[in-house]
C-alpha cells in the first residue's frame, strides 16, 4: 500500500549527508596544519559542493516519487470508481428492467380493456406488488451503498468480544435450529477485552453468521472459536460446513457487489462492508475455503489494555 512520505526518517537522509559533508569540510579545514591549508580548502570545498548537489538530486527524486505515488493513488481511485459504477449499474438496471416490464404488462392488460375477470385483476395486483418489491430491492442497494460510503468514525470502547459474539449467535440460533444448523461455541475464557466499536463489530459478526447459515442451507454446523493469537492480538474464527467458495472467487469475496447468491437475494455488499469495518477497527479479516467443505472467516483484532470499559 502506498503511503504519503511525510516526515519519515528516509527523508532526513539527504540532510544528514549534507551535515556530515559540512562536518568533514570543517574537520579538513581545522586539520589544514597537517595536510596543508590550500589542499584542505580544496578538498573541503569539493566535498561540500558534491554533498550539496547530491542532496538536491535526492530531494528532487523524492519529490518525483511523491508525485508519481499521488498519480498512482488517483488512478487506483478512478479504477475503483469505474468498477463500482459498473456494479451499481448492473444491480440497479435489473430491478429497473423488471419494473419496466411489469408496467408494460399492466398497460397491456388495460389496453385490452379486459380487467374485469378475477384472473386479470389478480395479475394487475401481482404486477403492482412486483414493482413494489423491486423498488425495495433498489432501495436496499442504495441504502447499503450509502452505508458503505458514509464516513463512520468508530467510537472505541472496551468490550468483551465473547459476549458480543454470543449475543449475535443467540439471534441467529433460533432460525438456525429450524434448519437443523448447530452453532458450536469454543470461546477462550480469559480472552483479553479489546478496544473496539461494539455496534460495528456486532454488524460484522451478524453478517458472517448469516452468510454461514446461508451457505449451509440445511443440516450443518457453524463453529465459532475465539482465541488469543499473540500478546497484542486476538482472533475470532467463524467456520461453516456449507458449500464453500471456489478458489477463483476467493480473491473477489470482499469486492463490492460480488455475490454468489441468486439475483435479488444478495447485494454483494455485506462482506465488503464487513471488511471496511474491520479495517477501521484496526484489524483485518481473512478467508479460507475448500469447495464443498465449507469456509472459514477469521477476524484478527488488536488486543490492547482497555480504558473506560463499558
Amino acid at each position, binding site marked *: 500500500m502506498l503511503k504519503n512520505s511525510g516526515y519519515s526518517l528516509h527523508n532526513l537522509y539527504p540532510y544528514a549527508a549534507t551535515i556530515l559533508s559540512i562536518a568533514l569540510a570543517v574537520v579538513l579545514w581545522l586539520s589544514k596544519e597537517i595536510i596543508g591549508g590550500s589542499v584542505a580548502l580544496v578538498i573541503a570545498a569539493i566535498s561540500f559542493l558534491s554533498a550539496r548537489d547530491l542532496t538536491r538530486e535526492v530531494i528532487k527524486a523524492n519529490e518525483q516519487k511523491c508525485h508519481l505515488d499521488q498519480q498512482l493513488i488517483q488512478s487506483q481511485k478512478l479504477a475503483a470508481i469505474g468498477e463500482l459504477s459498473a456494479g451499481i449499474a448492473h444491480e440497479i438496471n*435489473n430491478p429497473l428492467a423488471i419494473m419496466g416490464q411489469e408496467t408494460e*404488462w399492466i398497460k*397491456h392488460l388495460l389496453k385490452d380493456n379486459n380487467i374485469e375477470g378475477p384472473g386479470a385483476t389478480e395479475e394487475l395486483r401481482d404486477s403492482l406488488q412486483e414493482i413494489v418489491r423491486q423498488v425495495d430491492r433498489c432501495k436496499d442497494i442504495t441504502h447499503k451503498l450509502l452505508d458503505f460510503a458514509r464516513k463512520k468514525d468508530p467510537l472505541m470502547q472496551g468490550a468483551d468480544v465473547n459476549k458480543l459474539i454470543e449475543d449475535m449467535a443467540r439471534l441467529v440460533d433460533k432460525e438456525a435450529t429450524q434448519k437443523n444448523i448447530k452453532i458450536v461455541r469454543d470461546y477462550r475464557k480469559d480472552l483479553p477485552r479489546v478496544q473496539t466499536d461494539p455496534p460495528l463489530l456486532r454488524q460484522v459478526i451478524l453478517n458472517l453468521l448469516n452468510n454461514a447459515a446461508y451457505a449451509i442451507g440445511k443440516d450443518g454446523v457453524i463453529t465459532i472459536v475465539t482465541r488469543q493469537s499473540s500478546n497484542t492480538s486476538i482472533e475470532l474464527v467463524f467456520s461453516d460446513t456449507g458449500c464453500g467458495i471456489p478458489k477463483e472467487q476467493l480473491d473477489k469475496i470482499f469486492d463490492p457487489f460480488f455475490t454468489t447468491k441468486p*439475483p435479488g437475494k444478495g447485494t454483494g455488499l455485506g462482506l465488503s462492508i464487513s471488511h471496511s469495518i474491520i479495517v477501521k477497527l484496526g484489524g483485518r479479516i481473512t478467508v479460507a475455503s475448500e469447495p464443498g467443505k465449507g469456509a472459514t472467516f477469521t477476524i484478527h483484532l488488536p488486543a490492547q489494555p482497555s480504558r473506560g470499559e463499558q
Partner: protein
Amino acid sequence: MPLKAKVLIVDDEERFRLTLRKLLIANGLDTTAVGSGKEAIEELKQQPFDVILLDVKMPEMDGIEALGELKKINRGVEVIILTGHASVDVAVEIMRLGGYEYLLKPCPMEELLAKIESAYERKVARDERMRKAEAIQTDQAS
C-alpha cells in the same frame, strides 16, 4: 404486423424472464424462457429458435461462454444480448463471437420488439440465401 419469430429468453432473473415471455407471447411471438446457459444449450438441441435473448451475468456459465456454445449448435441463430452490465470489453467480445445486438436493461419494449424483428429478418434472409445456394449446387450436381 405480428412477428413470427421463435424466441428463446435466457436470464437467471426469474421474474424478468417470465414477464418478458408473457409480453412477447402477447405480441405474437412463440417464446420459451430458461434460467441458465446450460438450459439454453439443452433447449436449442431440442428445437430450433430464430432469436435468442441472452443475459451476460449468470452463475455457472456466463452469457459470453453460452453465446459461443449456442453458435456451435446453431450458427444461424441470431443472439441479442440483453444485460444490465454495460461494458465495452464485453460488447466487443459479443460482436466478435457473432452476437447480433447488445442492449442495456432496462430496454423499452418497443425497441426490443424492433430489434427482435430486425434480427428475425436477417435470419430469414440468411436462410433464404443458403437455400438458394444449396439449390444452385443441387442443380449443378444434377
